[in-house]
């Protein structure tokens, strides 16, 4: 083992600090849920949480009081309905007020692209005519210097910490993942520090069609956490636990049942 591969609790303690901007990504697939719950266990506070689709893992972090701000483009329990802890925070400031910065998926994806590219902003043809730009300071019109067309600029996202889950890593900390790859590469490369949790540690990475390999030197830490994406999934290792997504609706619906769940995580 190299120093790059460490246990999850150690990696989170080392990389994530109160007040940090933290992005846990994974587009339905390969969501680093176990890492999110470790952040809850370590009692971190005042985080700016960044994620395109804050789903169950961010509902948990918000309900546990870890977050002060949320930067996002779609907050829901995918295929099920609302995120009740997120809604309670936005509508009733429980357990703490939650400031929001709201984008579209295309806007968020491009903010990560700019961050990974070392550029101050990205350009897209979007947002025009919507009310989003009125409420979000990080959406601004820009004129194309060549055609004169009006487009939208969004600033780069460069989190303090980027966290994703992947299928496997080798002993040098090179990480391989495949299937729905979301914004994994972008968030790892855009972040000052990064953590990848993996299903499995292998001697050598077997080539897989369509797989992405992130070289170990481009990451900060790797932790081996089998099942660390549950209830999301890791293609080739596990299936999405649709029943759990549906069960979360009842767990998260009121504060008391959520508190009971939270006590279980902290135990």
């Amino acid at each position: 083992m190299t120093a790059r591969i460490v246990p999850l609790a150690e990696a989170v303690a080392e990389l994530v600090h109160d007040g940090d901007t933290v992005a846990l990504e994974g587009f339905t697939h390969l969501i680093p849920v176990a890492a999110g719950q470790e952040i809850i266990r370590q009692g971190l506070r005042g985080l700016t949480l960044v994620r395109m689709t804050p789903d169950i893992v961010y509902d948990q972090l918000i309900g546990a009081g870890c977050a002060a701000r949320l930067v996002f483009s779609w907050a829901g329990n995918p295929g099920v309905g609302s995120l009740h802890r997120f809604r309670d925070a936005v509508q009733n400031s429980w357990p703490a007020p939650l400031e929001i910065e709201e984008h579209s998926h295309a806007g968020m994806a491009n903010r990560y692209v700019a961050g990974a590219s070392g550029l101050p902003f990205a350009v897209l043809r979007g947002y025009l005519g919507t009310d989003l730009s009125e409420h979000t300071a990080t959406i601004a019109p820009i004129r194309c210097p060549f055609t004169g067309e009006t487009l939208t600029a969004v600033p780069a996202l460069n989190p303090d910490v980027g966290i994703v889950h992947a299928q496997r890593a080798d002993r040098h900390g090179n990480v391989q993942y495949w299937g729905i790859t979301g914004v994994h590469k972008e968030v790892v490369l855009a972040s000052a520090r990064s953590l990848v949790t993996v299903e499995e540690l292998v001697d050598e990475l077997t080539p897989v069609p369509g797989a992405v390999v992130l070289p170990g030197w481009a990451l900060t830490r790797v932790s081996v956490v089998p099942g660390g994406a549950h209830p999301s999934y890791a293609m080739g290792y596990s299936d999405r636990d649709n029943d759990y997504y549906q069960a979360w609706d009842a767990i998260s619906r009121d504060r008391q049942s959520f508190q009971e769940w939270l006590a279980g995580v902290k135990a």
Partner: protein
Amino acid sequence: MTWSADEMMTVAAARVLRGDSRCFVGIGLPSTAANLARRTHAPDLVLVYESGTIGAKPDRLPLSIGDGVLAETADAVVSVPEMFNYWLQPGRIGIGFLGAAQIDRYANINTTVIGDDYAGPRVRLPGAGGAPEIAASCGEVIVVVRQSARTFVDRVDFVTSVGHGKGPGDRERLGLRGRGPVLVITDLGVLEPDPDDRELTLTRVHPGVTAEQAVAATGWPLRVAATMTTTEPPSEAELTALRALTGSQETT
């Protein structure tokens, strides 16, 4: 066979998808309808989901746009930035299939907040997701939504995705590339933008529904076309395929 209003809506939505067109699919009703179309009259329909799967051929209905079955059966799986930048933005996708929490007379869509106060909303909804760019960049947009005066409002509380703005010429002025919403399919019938002033007009009702019912379920004085048609009832084959697809899940 008898059928529910939701089943009629889903079948009506599936029927408008033809041949080998490429369809950007949102989860829920649009996904059910698009999968039904692929299993009945349009086997070559290319289903595109924002999770990055292009040409998914799921044998069961996915609960989410990122279910493993979509990636396993897709022609290609691309990253999310690639999906939005290379495939959606330049107009490579012909049809966008969207739902709505609120929709107004110009087919502008709200999925962000209910209530006038963005910072202190009555109801906080999931937000934009991929919808604004789907609405802006697909060749045309089809909206599938249950009709009620609460959903069909005179003015949406928040424009998340632009339909026809405030009327003719608005999309062009904004530089939006696609034609925008061409059909709104509900559990009561079908609304289409007027060719001249773009206001949604009831052009069709489903079997057993009257124009008066549709007007009563709309929060503005809904226009009714001079010549109304009635939707063909769902065939047994359509209902069988739909129920096989949804299985124990609700058809919604």
